[in-house]
């Protein structure tokens, strides 16, 4: 099943991935990263590999796997 990997410490917490995942699979972490922001986290689920999250990430923080 497709999945994504978010580089936690690269994430700046813009959450554009969060709102752009058609399946609502990305959530906001409860803990801070090195940047002092709460990074986006992949809450594993029915990911379709549609890439929408990664397309929106301004920081190249998301890799999508098939």
């Amino acid at each position, binding site marked *: 099943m497709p999945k994504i990997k978010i580089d936690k410490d690269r994430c700046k917490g813009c959450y554009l991935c969060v709102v752009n995942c058609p399946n609502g699979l990305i959530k906001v972490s409860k803990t*801070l990263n*090195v*940047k*002092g922001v709460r990074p986006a986290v992949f809450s594993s689920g029915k990911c379709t590999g549609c890439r929408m999250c990664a397309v929106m990430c301004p920081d190249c923080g998301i890799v999508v796997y098939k």
Partner: protein
Amino acid sequence: MSKKKMKAESRKPKTKRVVCEEILCAGFGGQGIMFLGKLLAASGLEGGAHVTWMPSYGAEVRGGTAYSMVKISSGQIASPIVTDPDILIVMNKLSLVKYEGKLKEGGLLISNKSLVGDFPKRKGIRVLNIPMTEIAHKFGDIRCANMVAIGALAARSRMLSIRNVANMLKEAFKNKEELFVINKKALDKGYKS
């Protein structure tokens, strides 16, 4: 201003000993680093001291750590640039890494435990490690973590009084009563820590 005054004239040198506190505040963009410094300077001025405040160079580069520099002195201040601070306030880890080495021997480090974590390695300095962000979070606005730092500093500074800081804070938040209240709480909490 009279032209005469501006014309060449000699002045008596100021050679008596001055007390000067040099403070460096550093953290992320959103952590109110500039405001922190300005409030310190304003409070120093309120106390009758000479003060300068200087931001990290302008806004031409985004992101990264921001810092501001404050000098509070009983005498005239030459450069506002703080190269080896007496007091270092760090709000995030990167700032500690970057500026720890600059702190004067015997200087005071005020560190935001929430984001900086454990004690720094360096010896020979005084360290205050306060979970500022957590405290601020408790008061309902993580942005007032910087007030915790000021409070803590006011309790230890030779140039600042908590009363002056509180007054200046009030002025900064006039018409914003609610924000003032939260910030004041954080300030007091810091003062007591």
